[in-house]
């Protein structure tokens, strides 16, 4: 791939962004054809952090493989684990106790907020504003502290297991979560003052990276990337899992389809997640946090597919079982992979500086793309 340096016959400049580049947030390699500052083509080269998790999972048992998936989209590790646990439960046909369901949803939403916080900071940094990063981390740290108490880890939690969750909530959980909600509400106006309302920021984001609804569906975009174009695709709403159908929250939709719409989706989604947490935090039912399952899990012969909504979009887990203790074939449909594929489409004709903004609003997490 490295022979593609230099210039093309038309005199366009070919520039390699990545694998080590401050804007790619990981080891993504983009080969960009530039005419002056205008982008003519963006070609992603992947695989710098490919660990072949799908192959790995083929030799891991149904309890073990969940831990590997925390390393895919490490910013929504809980939700990855959740998807896998759901898929295994679907195969085993076990019901999980209500307490476990509520805990899972609470953790998912906390993860979603933490992920969007990090995205917000990194997004502003892509545009050259450093300060929001630290403001975002202030709130994110308190979520990580909550996770650390209950799950014992701050990033790759491995908290959800087939049949429920690994252990009960820490006694401080409710108190700490309420403190976090207080902190968040006190500080949320800073987000709008510092970034959203900034005239430079708005000029950088509006009318940039336009994605129509038809293209968003055709390119398989999901999550905020598609909802920014007005495609209703929140799995929590359209194919509810756990207790999402009993909760009150809105699917956030924007219609403009530009970078600013995708930005606003995530900002407003954080508020919806806060809403969900507020509904649940005082209503965690008593009872078991796990159903009894066999020590060695065996899925019946067949195929199982679950879809969940991660912070980045739709994560699908497809397990093909031959009746053994390990999956015969497992496929993770990661949201980042499809969202990345649209980058070339939306970036053409924009300036180099805008490419960075678009990558920011697509919220690419490279281990999620490479798996």
């Amino acid at each position, binding site marked *: 791939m490295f022979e593609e340096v230099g210039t093309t016959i038309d005199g366009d*400049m070919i*520039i390699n962004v990545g694998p080590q*580049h*401050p*804007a790619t947030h990981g080891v993504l390699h983009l080969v960009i054809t530039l005419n002056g*500052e205008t982008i003519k083509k963006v070609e992603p080269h992947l695989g710098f952090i490919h660990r072949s998790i799908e192959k790995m999972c083929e030799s891991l048992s149904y309890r073990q493989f969940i831990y590997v998936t925390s390393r895919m989209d490490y910013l929504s590790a809980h939700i990855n684990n959740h998807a896998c646990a759901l898929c295994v439960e679907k195969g085993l046909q076990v019901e999980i106790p209500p307490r476990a369901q509520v805990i899972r949803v609470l953790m998912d939403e906390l993860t979603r907020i933490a992920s969007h916080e990090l995205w917000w900071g990194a997004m*502003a*940094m*892509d*545009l*050259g*504003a*450093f*300060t929001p*990063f*630290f*403001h975002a981390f*202030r709130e994110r740290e308190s979520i990580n502290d909550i996770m650390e108490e209950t799950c014992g880890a701050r990033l790759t939690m491995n908290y959800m297991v087939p049949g429920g969750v690994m252990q009960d909530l820490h006694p401080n959980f409710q108190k700490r979560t309420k403190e976090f909600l207080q902190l968040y509400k006190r500080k949320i106006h800073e987000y709008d003052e*510092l*970034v959203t309302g*900034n005239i*430079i*920021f708005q*000029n*950088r984001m509006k009318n940039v990276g336009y994605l129509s609804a038809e293209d968003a569906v055709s390119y398989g975009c999901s999550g905020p990337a598609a909802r920014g174009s007005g495609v209703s695709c929140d799995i929590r709403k359209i194919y509810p899992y756990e207790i999402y159908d009993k909760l009150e929250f809105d699917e956030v939709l924007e219609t403009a389809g530009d970078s600013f719409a995708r930005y606003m989706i995530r900002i407003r989604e954080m508020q919806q997640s806060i809403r969900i947490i507020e509904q649940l935090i005082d209503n965690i039912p008593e009872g078991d946090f796990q159903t009894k399952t066999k020590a060695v899990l065996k899925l019946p012969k067949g195929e199982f597919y679950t879809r969940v909504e991660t912070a980045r979009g739709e994560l699908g887990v497809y397990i093909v079982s031959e009746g053994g203790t390990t999956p015969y074939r497992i496929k993770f449909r990661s949201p980042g992979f499809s969202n990345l594929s649209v980058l070339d489409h939306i970036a053409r004709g924009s*300036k*180099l*500086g*805008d*490419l*960075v903004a678009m990558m920011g609003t697509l919220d690419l997490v490279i281990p999620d793309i490479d798996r």
Partner: protein
Amino acid sequence: MWSFSNIANNLHEWLSNTFNPTMTLIIEMVLAGVAVIGLFAALGLVLVIMERKVSAWMQIRLGPNRVGPKGMLQSLADTLKLLVKEGLTPNGADKFLFNLAPFIAMIVAMLLMAPIAFAKDFQLWDLNIGVLYVSAVSSLMVISILMAGWSSNNKYSLMGAMRSGAQIVSYELSAGLSVLAVVVMTGSLQVSDIIHSQADGWWIFKGHIPMVIAFVTFIIAVTAETNRAPFDLAEAESELTAGFHTEYSGMKFALFFLAEYVNVFIVCAIGATLFLGGWMPFHIGNWTAFNHVMDYIPSSIWFFGKTFFLIFVIMWFRWTFPRLRIDQLLNLEWKYLLPISMINLLIVTAMAILKWHF
């Protein structure tokens, strides 16, 4: 009373009595050169620690706090590290230009020190076209950036240099026009004349709203000229890694770094001189008693106080705003700042002729 001008005069007298005139001149030139280099180094250290502390304060963190009292020696330690680092020259680079570029950046920054009045009657060279000299020499900065970008044999550097060329050349215009507003009011290009004309009040107060507009335009334009955020497109780290100095390391990188900070100091000093009276204390018209009290504060403190206030404002910009895009940057200059400052200059000229100012 103790002052910089007394020290300078005493030194001059002593030298004139001891040596012949030629020798005196040579010794004084050497002393001035050493003083500028010393100031250069000191400014670098102070401004870097200041930037880090200011950014830390804005980013709810502590900043450097390990080396020396409250981390004040951090930039000294950094300099030491940069000194012993290897200065790499990439293969395929134009070695002569590559190594020359940082020095040109330095020399330009040093030349700009000449007409700045640091305190009352304390100036290296009070030439009669001081303002013109400053705007002419500061334009040379772009040559070092273009040279660095071109000779690095790196596409990021080249793009950074291209952006920088377009940017500095454009923003020269509105910086020059806003400086002209003061020149029109004063009727002189000489720095000392400009400062003395503000003895009954600074131009930003005397000149009504048009002078405030000129001041704001000046601050925006010089922020762009020194490649500071939100106009740091030449180095735009999230797009071009480090722009024109991507390939530089060690002391050669440090020289660019230093030149940037010294340039910030110089443009702020010029802004303070033109609009805020330089070393001139805060005087109000003919309130003699008040003006007399103000005169008790040494002139050097007035000068450095104003300059560092402006530097703080420019740092504040950097740690608050996102970066502009290249076309927005040029639109801002050619569609907004330039017409505004041209019309403003017209109004200021009318004001100067009709004596509408205080």
